């Protein structure tokens, strides 16, 4: 029964992943990331993703502050932040966040404050969505790991 549960969890995970892929939230890079995870580094993906969340939240905070605080926003600094966010997003395969970043950067290069604000809104929204979904995914994976972990000794 526990084995079946693991299977179901795996199916759930796959479905969730498929949905995210279908929606374009994630891309192949995430799969590559998953492939990097093996016995030597069992929590590699979640580790990386957590770093990503940590960094990204910092960046988002900075971006918001830059946009809101001063009337004369520092677009150059914003560009640097965005580049960082873009780089890390493409590393973990967060496709939609990355795309929004591209748009954001384009807006910031044109010093288009309204566009930047809009993009920031969108970026935060996408980021939250991604975060929720990935958290969901990791929860399932944890459950699966748990159930699988129980199974292994039985098998052995």
């Amino acid at each position, binding site marked *: 029964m526990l084995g079946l549960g693991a299977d179901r969890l795996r199916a759930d995970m796959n479905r969730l992943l498929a949905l995210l892929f279908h929606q374009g939230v994630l891309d192949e890079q995430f799969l590559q990331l998953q492939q990097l995870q093996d016995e030597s580094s069992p929590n590699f993906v979640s580790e*990386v993703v957590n770093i990503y969340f940590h960094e990204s939240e910092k960046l988002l905070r900075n971006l918001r502050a830059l946009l809101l605080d001063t009337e004369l926003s520092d677009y150059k600094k914003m560009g640097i932040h965005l580049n960082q966010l873009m780089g890390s997003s493409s590393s973990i395969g967060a496709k939609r966040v990355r795309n929004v970043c591209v748009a954001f950067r384009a807006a910031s290069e044109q010093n288009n404050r309204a566009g930047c604000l809009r993009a920031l809104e969108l970026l935060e929204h996408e980021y939250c969505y991604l975060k929720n979904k990935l958290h969901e995914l990791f929860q399932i994976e944890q459950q699966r790991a748990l159930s699988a972990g129980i199974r292994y000794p039985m098998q052995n």
Partner: protein
Amino acid sequence: MGLKMQSHQSLAVRLNEQMGTKRGYTLIQSYRAWLPKFLIFWVFLMAILSMFIYNGMDADNKVRRKEVLSSMCDQRARMLQDQFSVSVNHVHALAILVSTFHYYKNPSAIDQETFAEYTARTAFERPLLSGVAYAQRVVDSERENFERQHGWTIKTMKREPSPLRDEYAPVIFSQETVSYIESLDMMSGEEDRENILRSRATGKAVLTSPFRLLGSHHLGVVLTFPVYKSKLPSSPTVEERIEATAGYLGGAFDVESLVENLLGQLAGNQAFLVNVYDITNSSDPLIMYGHQNQDGDMSLVHESKLDFGDPFRKHQMICSYHQKAPTSWTALTTAFLFFVIGLLVGYILYGAAIHIVKVEDDFHEMQELKGRAEAADVAKSQFLATVSHEIRTPMNGILGMLALLLDTDLSSTQRDYAQTAQACGKALIALINEVLDRAKIEAGKLELEAVPFDLRSILDDVLSLFSEKSRNKGIELAVFVSDKVPDIVMGDPGRFRQVITNLVGNSVKFTERGHIFVKVHLAESPKAMMNGKSESTLNGVPNEDVLTSGGCQFKTLSGCEAADDRNCWDTFKHLIDDKEFRYGSSSNRVATNEEYVTLMVCVEDTGIGIPLRAQDRVFMPFMQADSSTSRNYGGTGIGLSISKCLVELMGGQISFISRPHVGSTFSFTAVFGRCKKNAFDEMKKPKSEDLPSGFRGLKAIVVDGKPVRAAVTKYHLKRLGILVEVASNIKTVTLSTKNGSVTSGRNIMHPDIVLVEKDLWISIEDGGFCVRQLDWEQNGHMFKLPKMILLATNISNAEFDKAKAAGFADTVIMKPLRASMIAACLQQVLGIGKKRQQGRDMPNGSSFLQSLLCGKKILVVDDNMVNRRVAAGALKKFGADVDCAESGKVALKKLQLPHCFDACFMDIQMPEMDGFEATRRIRQMESQANQQMNGGPAVEESTCRKGEWHVPILAMTADVIHATYDECLKCGMDGYVSKPFEEENLYQAVAKFFKS
């Protein structure tokens, strides 16, 4: 919506206006109101013209008539004059006779008797004179003497004794015809007296004016001649003449009978009316002959002068026609005919013009209707497009919500309902999309993209779409793309896929057994195929032979008969031969320069076929073979018409050959752009991901009895870079390997993989053959076992177990074949093997990468923690020992010499110090160290290469453009890898440094 409708209306109106302005008014059209007036005018013109013609001809007649008249008249006048003068001459002669014999002879030789006889006998000389008489001049003093001498008294014309006068002129001699005037005094008659006086004064013959002659009562004139007693001087005066006058000779001209006679002698007498006038007194002409009031044609008269020898008297002859000129029938007929002809011509022209006007009116009307119909059609299409679009939006909402609903916790019934609703919704969306497509195409709004795409992968995708269905039905589904077809073409991948999907979908729908075969080759190739075809028939191997000998086996993909035998092996192999020949010579034949490539795509199935009577309306929208089709198979029948439109948009044509109960073959051509070389390179990268290159150089044997199918398998394996041999049965394979792989004549390899077709295996199995008999190791060679793979369309569990037992332990590849799927299967099969042969030199794949990177110490420099972590993770996976630096400065510190790093991956975009700058500094550091080292004592040599410090630095960059690459090299980097890492890319970059 209302706005849109309005715009449609205005469009239609505009269209009409355009038509209106465009409408070409011809000359006739613009004067249409004038046409009847033109006709009337024409009739008048004709009437006038014919009148002119009549007048012209009539005038001719008149002139002729006039000429005739004048000549006649002149002739008569001349004759009359001649006759008259002859008579006058004779009278003159008589006068001379009288003077000679009466006066110069003494006594007189003439008396009344002599005179009468002589004149009677010479009367024929004077036909015009009724008679002549001689009157003697008697002065009053001589009267008594004279009366006495002659014995009678002088009497007046009234036969009375003459009264007393100065002188008298009594007639003494007379012709018998006028004997009644003897003794009459000529001086007593008014005319005679005047005559006598005038004649003796002039000495010439003189004439009286016409008067009624005595006796005959005819009109006549009297001619009087003077007779002189003595000879006159040469130019006598009047007095001398009067003095010398002895008497007068006179004669009466009976002009009336004279002219009557004369005219009687001439022809055409009846036609003319002749009048002779004395016009001495021009105001009052006296008639001499003819009737004053005779009716005749007085419109045409001719006057001729008559000279009767008396200068005092003037005479003229007036001639005219008795009858009026007869109407000239020729002229009349000619004119009338001319008029009639003109009338007819006019009417014909008028009729033609009216007809033209009518036809043009009709034409314009039709054009207007056509325009309206077209506008309506466009409006319809636009409406359809709009409505479809409007429907699609809410439908997407419905479907999305249904998908969300399905994600929630539902009971199985609810789930079933929701799934049904979703399926229906999807079907509806599909239908709407089709209708929308159709409408878009009709409205001319569909535009094709031109982007580079990989045709083969699209075909693979389509195949995978139908793989489930075809597998369930047990149909073979295969695709084959000729090698000549370029890898990347420019076109609209979506639309191309749509057409293929539609055709294959139809085929799958209508096929229950056999195969569906999609084949793509260059449109030029069929020529080669045709050649092949004719050749095969020349060789005397008609298809029937194949049929019978093969035991109802056709040389098609599945062995079932196909509608179009172009895909059977006999022709197909020519295509491959040709291709291989091209392949061989392609080294010197660089890519063709043509800008476009025309592809021929055939989709062949062995389904129910299309009924003959339905074949001509296959491409019509909403038409299916018959109404039962939609009942049995579903569908709207719009797909093929869309396909046709799309194919035409792609510059090609679609056609089909179908035989009921045998199958259908749809083939279409499409024109695609060839890809430019650089674009091609760019494309190559992302697309090559699909097919892993790890199989390059592997060798495989395909065992398949059916050559077409074998060719398809070969094609897929070839795409993976695997060298393929085809064997028709397992025994040959066994033999060839047993005999040290020389029997086949080629330097055939020891195969890594053997792919066996399930049909073949089953048949062998039945014959008691076991694959285990392929005792590979018996031949003593040290080859490892080749992987045995079974190819199957569908396989039951029992069969699967049997296959496993028979030696196909490795895997079963399910058809339809796709390169990526084969790759996945092979990866699965060979992946296990890789670990076993780790030492083996396999220049590709992750295992090699692992061998390269294993144990190497690598520094990753990136400011982005996530990237750093990922890169580190990836490198660690390949066994590298990874250290990280979060900025250029830290990296510089870590790379202070001496260090123990084998390589450095450097991010380019970093704050403070970017990758280029960091690299430059590192290189600076190294060169200083190298100089010192060369000069000074040797340093640690563990990591230095050729006695020099040079740590390989690879740039990590997200944007792979050439400019960046150039800059990388400029600042001393050794290469670059794209970020995020790709195995292939990483391998290529790393291989350069760790090759040694």
